[in-house]
């Protein structure tokens, strides 16, 4: 039994079958990659895990409990954080504030009326946020508005926001898209370090095969909403079906 169990999930958008009988089992503390051509339904699958979408049929269990029908913030509080395909950050707030907010959410829960205490008095939260930002090499941008960051930095900031929550399951939707090669390599190293030093499970969607093969222990290939194969990176590389459906025609 994996920490995340997706069973027979179907999702239709009008006439389009975005997810067709998807089964996925992610083992605890593993890095599991989900790959597939554009429009395969990868992001839609993540949407079903975090409460953004409700599947038409099927079940999604995280740590033995169903996430279906729960609100996004409740699902997050059970330990699932997500980095979106297009960065979702607080553009009007500073970089430091962006990371302090998830720290508050993790410490204080979904709502707490801290109206009189000052932010400055929250030394613990501030230090924790700074530490995560140093890991992400964003320490020089603490006081800048998040909206002023470059695309790659925004993505790193969003990753910092998720990591600050110390989630048990981290969902990454194309974390290196829009990054320069050097930044991509830095991100790979960082994710490797997280994988090796923390108890964290990662599900990662990625088009960049270099990233996938450097990180993943298992790979699921999705095509037209249905899982094509699931296997180890070694076996996926030479798999004829995958070659045909994906690797042959896309990046790699």
């Amino acid at each position, binding site marked *: 039994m994996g920490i995340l169990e997706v069973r027979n999930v179907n999702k239709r958008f009008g006439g389009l079958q975005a997810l067709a009988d998807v089964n996925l089992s992610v083992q605890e503390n593993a890095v599991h990659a989900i790959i597939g051509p554009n429009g395969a339904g990868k992001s839609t699958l993540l949407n079903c895990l*975090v409460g953004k979408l409700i599947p038409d049929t099927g079940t999604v269990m995280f740590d033995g409990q169903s996430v279906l029908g729960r*609100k*996004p*913030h409740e699902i*997050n*509080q059970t330990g699932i*954080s*997500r980095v*979106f395909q297009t960065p*979702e*950050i*607080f*553009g*009007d*707030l*500073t970089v430091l*504030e962006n990371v*302090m*907010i*998830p720290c*508050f*959410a*993790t410490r204080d*829960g*979904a*709502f*707490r*009326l*801290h*109206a*009189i*205490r*000052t*932010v*400055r*008095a*929250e030394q613990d939260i501030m230090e924790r946020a700074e530490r995560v930002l140093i890991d992400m090499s964003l320490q020089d941008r603490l*006081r800048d*508005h998040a909206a002023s960051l470059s695309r790659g930095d925004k993505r790193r900031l969003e990753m910092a*926001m998720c990591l600050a*929550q110390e989630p048990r399951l981290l969902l990454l939707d194309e974390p290196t898209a829009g990054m320069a090669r050097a930044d991509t390599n830095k991100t790979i190293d960082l994710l490797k370090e997280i994988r090796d030093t923390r108890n964290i499970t990662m599900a990662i969607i990625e088009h960049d095969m270099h990233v996938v093969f450097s990180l993943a222990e298992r790979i699921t290939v999705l095509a037209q909403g249905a899982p094509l194969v699931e296997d180890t990176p070694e076996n996926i590389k030479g798999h004829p079906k995958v070659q045909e459906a994906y690797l042959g025609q896309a990046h790699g």
Partner: protein
Amino acid sequence: MAGLDARDTRFLLIVVALTLFTPILLQPFPESSSLAQFNAGYPDLMQRFAIFGIFAIGFNILFGLTGYLSFGHAAFLGVGSYATVWMFKLLSYNVLPGLILAVITSGLFALLIGYISLRRSGIYFSILTLAFAQMSFNLAYSVLTPITNGETGLQVYTDDPQYLLAEGGLTTTHIFGLAMNKSLVAPVGGWEFTFNVGYYFCAVIAIAAFYLSLRIFRSPFGMMLRAVKSNQQRMSYTGLNTRPYTLAAFVISGMYAGLAGGLMASMDPLAGAERMQWTASGEVVLMTILGGAGTLMGPVLGAGFIKYFENIFSKINDNVLHGWFAFLPDGLEDLLVTIVHPFVGKGWHLTLGLLFMLVVIFLPGGLVEVGQRLRRLFTRRGGTPDAADPRHAPKSAPHVAE
């Protein structure tokens, strides 16, 4: 001091000083000068500055921080006024019980309206709040007349119980025996300064209200409210429930409005339904945007500006204009009077409207942006490139919540 850093403490002290010296600062022209017209240091108007300042500060906690644009905040103003007058009718003219009840009832009322309206955001939220306020306004004239006294307005009658009114007690509003209408008039040279109890009472409460809003701005709660405005999606996926945050902001700002309404009744023991009309709700929106939504000082500035126009510009009639231009040849004098005429007196709305447009177009951050630009200019010359503190000068943001 008082949980603030050095910068905010200095800021607060400046606000306190300005508020306390208002009776002097707003009286710059000697009584005999032809500009005495522009003096605004009389009790009635100064009280209104403080009261509408409170209203706008509270409104800004909702609109400025979360971006939720309420078009029905005057309803809470009205509720506060009615509650206070009822306390006058039932207890005595001491304003304290009335103000407490005003804050409580408007808070409860805001809880109800907010709970329903906050199910939607953006323009739908605005329309819902507007609908609620108009409903309250109409009910006050119809079904609720036993409570509101309909078109006559709620006031105190001699046969009201006033259980706490002692024999020979004050029959004007007061705070523990200190009558609100009491003033000390100090002629100094050609000037005349009026120090009024009512104004100082409102001023002290306004300072407290400002201090509280400053604390909210600097608190984790304030940060969450700004996060709501910035990206609600991200908040949900970060494990935060946005609804209670916006509801808390709505209730707090409703209580500020109720307090302002209570103070209005405390200065003049009357409450009428027109206080809840949509124009009154619109006014506080204008004040906040004109001054600078989301900034600390902006709403206060905006409130002062609009009340000044309403009370000073509206009093300039043709006679006054003729007086000003008397030194010119007759033909020219008449011409100038004709040109200026539509902008003053009853036409003050026109001037305000033009001013509002200019601000929105050229100073999207509101009037406070003038100060910020000046400061930036000076600090740049002074050689410190980035002294502008984003917390004191938040970037202007779109005015309607998504």
